[in-house]
């Protein structure tokens, strides 16, 4: 394993690895039965890792002929009751949107990893956060949302991957893991316990899966609802599910927010840069704090609403031209100004750039 340099520290038992490798290994630990994918930079370590580990574990690995095929193979594996995953980067995720919509329509669990790169089009292979709208608004056709988990460190990527499989099974739908090229390629230590197989992987029964109609009535999996009113009813059922997810699974991290006059909102890689800016602003006695959404959907709107009661301004930082900023504006609801600083097309903001913007506002 070239990328996964095992520099095991005897006391802490950590492993140094890339985010892509960590997500892959965490998926293996979470009992992923089936992986299909297509190569695309910057997530290639992930598919390479799976090509080795899944075969070693006697599970299914397929390098598919396209992203469309990959997501539909995952669909099939999920139909059969498997824990299934695919991964890609932005242009490939666009291709998977048809399948994601069908997974929602057929209520099939799956984990989909997007290690984002710059767009639109072929864009570039630099890290970006420009697929936020796609990840949080549904992405494909139809009236739906998908849980979107956004780690900001390699270890958190591993932890959220395990969670993604559980949430997908629990709510019978696709769950996205949203990273970027930096998170995918960067090496960081990961507690080896995070990557060890769970003693008893939380497997819920899937009586709906297609396994052959032996001693039961045939199971049918479909997203077609032609009877008048039946599709409306199904959509309302989805919305009910989403309300429950919002209540139970909204996740965020707060940094020095209690007395903050300026609240920076950022996720993933830009939240790490934002944290560095907050630390240096605090060093010059400026009251800055940070809110980091861990779930992009459901969005932590309550926490932002709460912070808006005290804050004088918000500064949203993204590696895009401004997408999450709209959700922050909605949550703040005009209580105070919401500013934006971003770098699109593979640009990465520096702490100094953020600090400079913040000082203008404080």
């Amino acid at each position: 394993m070239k990328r996964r340099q095992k520099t095991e520290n005897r006391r802490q038992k950590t492993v140094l690895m890339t985010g892509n490798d960590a997500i892959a290994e965490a998926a293996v630990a979470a009992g992923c039965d089936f992986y299909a994918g297509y190569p695309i930079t910057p997530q290639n370590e992930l598919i390479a890792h799976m090509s080795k580990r899944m075969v070693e574990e006697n599970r299914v690995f397929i390098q598919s002929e396209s992203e469309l095929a990959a997501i539909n193979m995952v669909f099939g594996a999920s139909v059969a009751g498997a824990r299934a995953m695919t991964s890609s980067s932005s242009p490939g995720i666009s291709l998977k949107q048809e399948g994601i919509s069908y997974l929602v329509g057929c209520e099939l669990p799956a984990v989909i990893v997007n290690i984002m790169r710059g767009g639109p089009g072929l864009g570039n292979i630099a890290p970006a956060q420009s697929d936020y709208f796609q990840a949080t608004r549904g992405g494909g056709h139809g009236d739906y949302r998908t849980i979107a988990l956004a780690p900001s460190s390699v270890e958190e990527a591993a932890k959220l991957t395990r969670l993604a499989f559980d949430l997908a099974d629990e709510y019978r739908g696709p769950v996205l893991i949203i990273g970027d090229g930096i998170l995918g390629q960067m090496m960081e230590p990961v507690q080896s316990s995070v990557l060890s197989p769970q003693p008893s992987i939380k497997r819920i029964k899937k009586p709906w899966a297609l396994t052959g109609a032996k001693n039961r009535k045939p199971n049918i999996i479909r997203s077609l609802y032609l009877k008048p009113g039946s599709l409306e009813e199904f959509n309302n059922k989805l919305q009910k599910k989403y309300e429950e997810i919002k209540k139970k699974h909204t996740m965020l991290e707060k940094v020095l927010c209690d007395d903050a006059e300026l609240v920076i909102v950022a996720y993933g890689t830009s939240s790490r840069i934002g944290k560095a800016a907050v630390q240096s602003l605090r060093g010059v006695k400026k009251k800055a704090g940070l809110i980091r959404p861990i779930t992009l959907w459901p969005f932590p709107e309550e926490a932002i609403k709460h912070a808006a009661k005290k804050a004088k301004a918000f500064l949203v930082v993204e590696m895009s031209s401004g997408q999450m900023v709209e959700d922050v504006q909605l949550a703040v609801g005009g209580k105070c100004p919401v500013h934006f600083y971003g770098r699109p097309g593979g640009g990465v903001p520096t702490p100094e750039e953020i600090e400079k913007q913040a000082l203008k506002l404080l």
Partner: protein
Amino acid sequence: MKKIFEKPKSLRGVSTHYCPGCGHGVVHRLVCEVIDELAIREKTIGIAPVGCAVLAYDYWDFDVTEAAHGRPPAVATGIKRMLPDKIVFTYQGDGDLAAIGTSEIIHTANRGENITVIFVNNGIYGMTGGQMAPTTLLKQKTKTTPFGRDKVRDGQPLKISEMISTLDAVAYIERVAVHKPGNIRAAKRAIKKAFSNQIDKKGFSMVEIVAMCPVGWGTSCEGAIRRIDEEVLKQYPLGVLKG
């Protein structure tokens, strides 16, 4: 009194939505007869396509999943790799298999996936009202070829079974028809072989079934049967292409 003819157990006792003279009803029944005869109903998983046969799950009395347009072979791959001892088959029309899903069928065949493919070729998009299919004949008038299919403007009829039969990993491909009793019996033998191959783990097997679509073709039911003999089978000759 001895019963000599009955409805297959795998076929539900419901009335059909298919148009008069349509080939799908015959093919649905043949698939069910074969599943009954091989005693595999309890371990069969079918994949219904997008198109007229999307409602196949209303007729088949075994596990069935829907798939996005053209993607049944990829979905079948996922199911079969997870459940190698189950019998997995796709049921696809010509638009599904030979246009939007060309990539999936070719690569699934090329991987030699141990599945069965039932490919119904009626040379038209029936569900959407009769547009040109990849298998539509030259000069054939459809909703999107009002002047007849032109080889320069519209391309030529795609012989996808011949293409797939060149792949090393493929076990069996045969083209049959369901317009006459003798052909229907031959079609059943081919379908049975394609399923038996899967049971015997021989690999990818596909049966192309030339079928009637009188409504889409703008003919009577009898006219559609005549058209198969007089025109369609000249472009798509019957026989074993591989295996």
